[in-house]
């Protein structure tokens, strides 16, 4: 049985007798090694610089060669060939390798199935992690997208279930530009479209009252724009993307998924893009057209979310996956319903041809 320290680093199990369960344990003979340990330490302190090997070896190996006066100890430390310059200590965070200055391909632990959109920071060589957390520049990697990337992502959310590769492409480079500005645009657009739809209904009501000879109870009311719609829609859309996204993130993390919060926000944010044209179409004051359009848009964006999150959820919680996906789809349908009933339903008058 050789000394355990004689193993090379390549194969720690080269000395199979040490790990062979069928042999009886024989304690190592320390009478020889104990004396060798002490003199190995002394020459390091005494020999000083001579005992230190050149800087290429990170491990401070006590040099047995310097102990010429003492009997050569049986301890032989081999020089380490471990390369520490590639150790970053931060798995999966793009752009944090100390030597490579930001162009290291991201997702160290997660195999990207598609080439990431844009992993190097645009033209400035400084590492965003050098800034403290209150400095805006620290969050630049979350906005590291070009116009064509955003356009692609918006297009992908429109196509939705037909080509569910959104998650694969944005896994390593999610962006928060899309979610925030799509939600903001949607707030504005639903307020505008909702108010205009109400105005059309108000006008038709006025005309009907004037034509029917009503004394003036309705005809003289003045139109006031409802600005409360803007604050409510801000709460709704920001809450849906960021609040519900956060809740889903916590749920997924509880199931030990590795997804990042920005990925969840990215998907939820881009899923709202289809509601923007929907809001304009809903100005048409026909009841069933509105229901149809809202249903279509909600269905497509819901399918977008579900088909892109499906893989992640199945990986994390295979037993509960159907339930989780059902909850996600249900909440999305609730948002669609709320859109239809709050923004595009004028309480003062019934809509043309039926269901309001």
């Amino acid at each position, binding site marked *: 049985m050789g000394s355990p320290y004689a193993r090379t680093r390549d194969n720690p199990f080269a000395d199979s007798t040490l790990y062979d369960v069928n042999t009886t344990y024989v304690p190592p003979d320390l009478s020889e090694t104990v004396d060798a340990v002490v003199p190995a330490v002394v020459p390091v302190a005494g020999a000083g610089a001579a005992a230190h090997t050149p800087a290429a070896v990170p491990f401070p190996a006590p040099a047995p060669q310097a102990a010429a006066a003492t009997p050569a100890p049986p301890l032989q430390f081999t020089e380490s060939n471990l390369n520490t310059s590639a150790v970053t200590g931060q798995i999966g965070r793009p752009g944090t390798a100390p030597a490579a200055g930001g162009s290291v391909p991201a997702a160290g632990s997660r195999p990207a199935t598609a080439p990431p959109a844009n992993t190097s920071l*645009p033209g400035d060589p400084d590492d965003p992690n050098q800034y403290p957390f209150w400095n805006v520049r620290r969050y630049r990697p979350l906005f590291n997208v070009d116009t064509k990337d955003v356009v692609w992502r918006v297009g992908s959310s429109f196509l939705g279930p037909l080509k569910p590769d959104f998650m694969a492409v944005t896994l390593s480079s999610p962006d928060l530009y899309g979610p925030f500005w799509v939600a903001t645009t949607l707030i504005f657009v639903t307020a505008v479209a909702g108010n205009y739809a109400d105005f059309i209904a108000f006008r038709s009501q006025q005309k009907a009252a004037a034509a029917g000879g009503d004394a003036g109870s309705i005809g003289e009311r003045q*139109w006031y724009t409802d600005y409360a719609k803007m604050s409510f829609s801000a709460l709704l859309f920001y809450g849906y993307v960021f609040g519900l996204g956060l809740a889903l993130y916590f749920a997924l993390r509880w199931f030990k998924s590795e997804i990042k919060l920005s990925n969840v926000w990215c998907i939820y944010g881009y899923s709202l893009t289809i509601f923007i044209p929907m809001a304009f179409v809903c100005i048409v004051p026909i009841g069933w057209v509105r229901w149809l359009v809202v249903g279509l848009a909600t269905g497509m964006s819901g399918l977008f979310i579900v088909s892109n999150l499906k893989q992640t959820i199945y990986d994390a919680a295979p037993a509960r996956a159907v339930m989780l996906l059902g909850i996600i789809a249900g909440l999305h349908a609730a948002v669609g319903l709320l859109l239809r009933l709050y923004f595009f339903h004028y309480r003062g008058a019934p809509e043309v041809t039926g269901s309001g």
Partner: protein
Amino acid sequence: MAWPERTETERLFGDSVPSVPLSSTGNVAPVQGSSLAPLAPPPLQGTSLGFGSADDENTLDEPVWATLKRDVLTIGRNLRSVLIPVNWDFQNHQAALHNWDLWGPLIFMLGLAITLSAGEKKPSDVFALVFTEVALGAVVLTINVILLGGSIVFFQSLCLIGYCLFPIVIAAIVCTLVKLSWVRTLVLVLCLGWASFATIPFIGKTVSSERRALAVYPVLLMYVSIGWLALVKS
């Protein structure tokens, strides 16, 4: 505005030069009894960093009217150079952005909020909405540019976005006075075009060309939303 060229000692001590001769050979340590010897390094002179770069020491004594007049003239000058980006004014254009001030944006924002909230069913709601939207919008737009990797000076950008509200203030005043929707629409489109024409070159140049649309779109969104508030005003 040409800052008067004065030496540091004249700025600090008025027109009388200190009687203690300041040794420049460096062989004399600051004398204990001399209260004038150790001069702190004087602030940069002539480089305009916005407020405070004027000769503050001399403006304490001036009459109020002179102070107001100077600020009003600054606002007017900045307004002209921001909103009329003609090449012959190029020198002033750069100077205006260096001499950023927030008085103009504040006055325009308040004017806009008051105009838009007059005559509404709930004027306080509208006022709060406009005020919040403009203030937060300017800040968020600047942060957006920084996040996209652009280099921008925070207060210069606030100053510019604030000054570009001026055409929209005009549109709001017109919309208050006129009820015809086609007049409102026409005036609004013209004023929005003017405001965009002033802001877009500035914002567009701060980010790289692949992201220009990403930086410009939120600016347009903000102006269109404020314009819509003017359009639907009752």
